[in-house]
Structure formats: C-alpha cells, structure tokens
C-alpha cells in the first residue's frame, strides 16, 4: 500500500476510535465527577508520553526543535484566544451561552488537528513510529470524545447529534496527518521544525487544557496516579519500537 494511504488509514483509525468514546454515557453528578477527571488525566498522561516519544526521535539541531516547540505553544495559545477558552467550562458549558456549543466543538476540532500533525510527522520519521503514534492517539481519543459527548449532552444535544459532532470534530485529524506527512517528506529540512511544533503543541494542550480540567473533577492523588502511569506505559511501549 502506498505510504500516504497508510498515513490516511491509521490517522482515520485514530479519529474513528473517538466514536465509542462519544457513545459512553457518563454519570452526571452535580458537583464533581471523578470519572471525568480520570478521563482527562488518562488523556493528559498519554499525550505527555506521545510528546516524549517525539522528542526522542529528533536528531536534528536542538535549536530548530525548540523554536518549533515555541511556535507550537504559540499556536495553541492563539486557538485559545480565538475560542475565548477562559470563558468556557470544557466539562459543563453554559446552557445560556449560544456560542458555548460551537466553541466547544471548535476547541476539540483544533485539538484533533494538532494530534493529526503529531501522527503525520511521526509517520514521516518512521512508519512504525507513526503507527504507534496513531494507536496511542486513538486510545487517547476515547476518553476525549467521551468528554465532548458529556459536555454536548449537558448542552441538550441528542445522541445521534453528539456522534455527529464527535465525527465532525475529528475529521481534521486524518487530513492534517496526510498534509503534515507530505510536507515533512517533500521538504525534509522542515522535519525538525515540525517535530518541535508537534511536541510544543501537545505539551501545551496537556498543561493548559487537560490537566487543569482534570484537577477540577477529582483529587490530585488519583489524577497524578492515572496520568503518571499512562505516561509510563506510553514511554515503555514507545521504547519497544524497532
């Protein structure tokens, strides 16, 4: 099979794995929801692990990677400005605010695009690394889509509507994966920059979205446990790669 098709296939698997997550129904307790917190922590730890695996493969000059990483941080910061993240509760969007729903889907979509870049650049480095990255992000997408669905249900969306939104917010992932792969393979000089970008963006997503949201839902002991074990497992599996 041609490589772009492999990239598309695995990135699509990653995106589609969001659907079972979207179908999961979460108990909607009024105050804090531990399961929600643990889902965030699982997603955060897995993503930290993915970022770690990407930092290990860059043999290019450290400076290009670091500048790329700062650009990645800036990109996530810009998406937060555009979607006005600080006025939005990711887990319990305000029902009275008509922009909350679209902004929530937009945040998830931008988030999925960033992961698409990570999959694409990993594929460009090495196909087995890319497959690993796609599978890691597929697992990460399950709790993430569950979070989106619990929030859209809070907003009053129907179940088919929620599944539709989950798919809509994830289509950018395979598209960006293929585009990034094309860029990194046709212009090899861009590889360290794109790797850095993916690392910076993933780390900033964890630190500004996933972890703060997780601590709001559950105690820091369980959050720290879930996130560090998830990080450890991804690091372990990433190290087994040929």
């Amino acid at each position, binding site marked *: 099979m041609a490589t772009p098709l492999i990239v598309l296939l695995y990135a699509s698997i990653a995106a589609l794995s969001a659907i079972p997550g979207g179908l999961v129904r979460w108990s909607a307790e009024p105050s804090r929801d531990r399961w929600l917190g643990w889902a965030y922590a699982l997603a955060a730890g897995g993503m930290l692990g993915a970022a770690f695996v990407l930092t290990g493969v860059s043999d290019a000059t450290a400076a290009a990677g670091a500048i790329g990483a700062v650009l990645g941080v800036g990109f996530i910061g810009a998406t937060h400005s555009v979607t006005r993240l*600080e006025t939005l509760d990711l887990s319990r969007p305000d029902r009275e605010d008509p922009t909350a729903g679209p902004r929530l889907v937009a945040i998830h979509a931008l988030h999925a695009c960033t992961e698409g870049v990570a999959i694409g650049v990993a594929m460009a480095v090495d196909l087995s690394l890319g497959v690993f990255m796609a599978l890691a992000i597929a697992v990460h997408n399950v709790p993430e889509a569950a979070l989106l669905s619990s929030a859209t249900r809070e907003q009053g969306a129907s179940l088919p509507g929620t599944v539709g939104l989950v798919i809509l917010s994830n289509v950018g992932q395979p598209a960006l994966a293929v585009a990034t792969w094309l860029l990194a393979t046709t212009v090899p000089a861009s590889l360290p920059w794109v790797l850095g970008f993916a690392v910076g963006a993933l780390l900033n997503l964890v*630190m500004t979205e996933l*972890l703060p949201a997780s601590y709001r839902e559950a105690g820091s002991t369980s959050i*720290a446990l879930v996130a*560090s074990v998830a*990080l*450890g497992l991804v690091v372990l599996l990433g*190290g087994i790669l040929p």
Partner: protein
Amino acid sequence: MRDVLLVFAYGMITALATGLGALPFLLVRTVSGRMIGRLNAVASGLMLGASFGLLAEGTRFGGWQTFSGGLLGVLFILVTNRYLREHHPQAGSPAGSEPGKADGLRRMVLIVTVMTVHSLAEGVAIGASFGGGMALATFITVAIAVHNIPEGVAISAVLRSNGISVPRCAGWSIVSSLPQPVMAVPAFLFVEAFAPALPYGIGFAAGAMVFMVLLEILPEAYGKGSAREIGTITTLSMIAMMLFQKMVAG
C-alpha cells in the same frame, strides 16, 4: 586513592553548582500570590523536563527496568506524602497556625526529599561514567554541574514561594545534591555492581519527580493563576529545560 578523591571533589563541585540556582531569586523582591503560582509553574516545567531527560537515559538501558523503577518512585512519594500528612500535620509551625502553612511545609519537605533521592541516582550515573576513563571526567563534571543549576532553580522556586530566604534556598539546593559526590565514589569503584541497578534508579527518580509535580506542585500552581498562564509557563519551562539538557549533552 587519588582517583577516588578526584571523583569526590568533582561530585562536590556539581553539588555546589546546584546552589547557584538560588541566585535569580535575589532579583525577585516580594513574593505575591500570583508570583507563587508562576514560581511553582517554573519548578514544575523544569522538573518535568528533567524527568524527560532521565526517561530518555533510563530507556536506553532498559524500558522495563525504567518503568518498574518509575512505579516504585510513585509509590515512594505516595507513602512519604501520606506519612508527612499523618505524622507532621503542623510540624515546625506553632499549633493552631493556618493549614496553608502546614501544606507549604509538606511541599517543601517533599521537594527537597525528591530532589535528594534523584541526585542519588545522578551520583551513581556520574560515578559509573567516570569508570569509562578519567579523561572524560572534567567534561562530565562541567556538564552535570551546569545541569544542576536549573534543578536548584526548581527547588528554590518552591522554597522561596514559601518565604524561605535566598541563602537558605541555596543551602537546601546544595544539600539536595550532596548524595552526588557520596554516591559517585562507590559507583566509580564498583561499576560492575552498580551498572545493572542504574535504569531502576533512573526510573525511580523520574517516577518520583513526575508524580510529585502532578500531585503537589502543579495543583498548587493552577490554584493561584489562570490555567492558560500557568500552563503556558509550565510548557515553556519544560521546553527550555529539554533544550538546555540537549545543549549540555552536546
């Protein structure tokens, strides 16, 4: 014997370098609530970046060993933290003082403990690498000494935000690195015996550090600023630490 003294002296230099990490705090005059959040974010980023460096080092020796060492590190912090909570809820502060103070004290004890344990593993790494020949000694010492400075910054950030003076921050930073010269010597002399334990030790240090950051330092930071500000400072500090380590390693 001369070699042993040299290894110890070089280990000592790396420990003293950690104290330099307190110096930037001479410039920070008052420590406001907002500043505490930012300092904790910097400390978190530096320690997470350092853990990534340790994980990269450990997984080169063995993934499973590093992973199981990491789980032990998590367990160690869990037990230590529980012990500190149960046995010294008010340690060092007068009875009836505000609970926030006791929390701050626990956090300080925890970070100094974690960084001390982590320099045990680093000391072994220094000693073991000296086994490869004394020619590299100076280079490795300088590399580790420079690499210790941001670790001193991380410790000082947490201590300083709890009102500890700058000279004391420097003192505790040095104390946390003392195991380096102490462990470097036996590791240098008995390299064969220590080498198999190295990935476990490195994993232990990384697991303990990541878990402590997630358990104590980051939640404290998020409580004192917006998720966006704290998260971005943490990420940038982490990137800076990783770049720094890469440049030091050459």
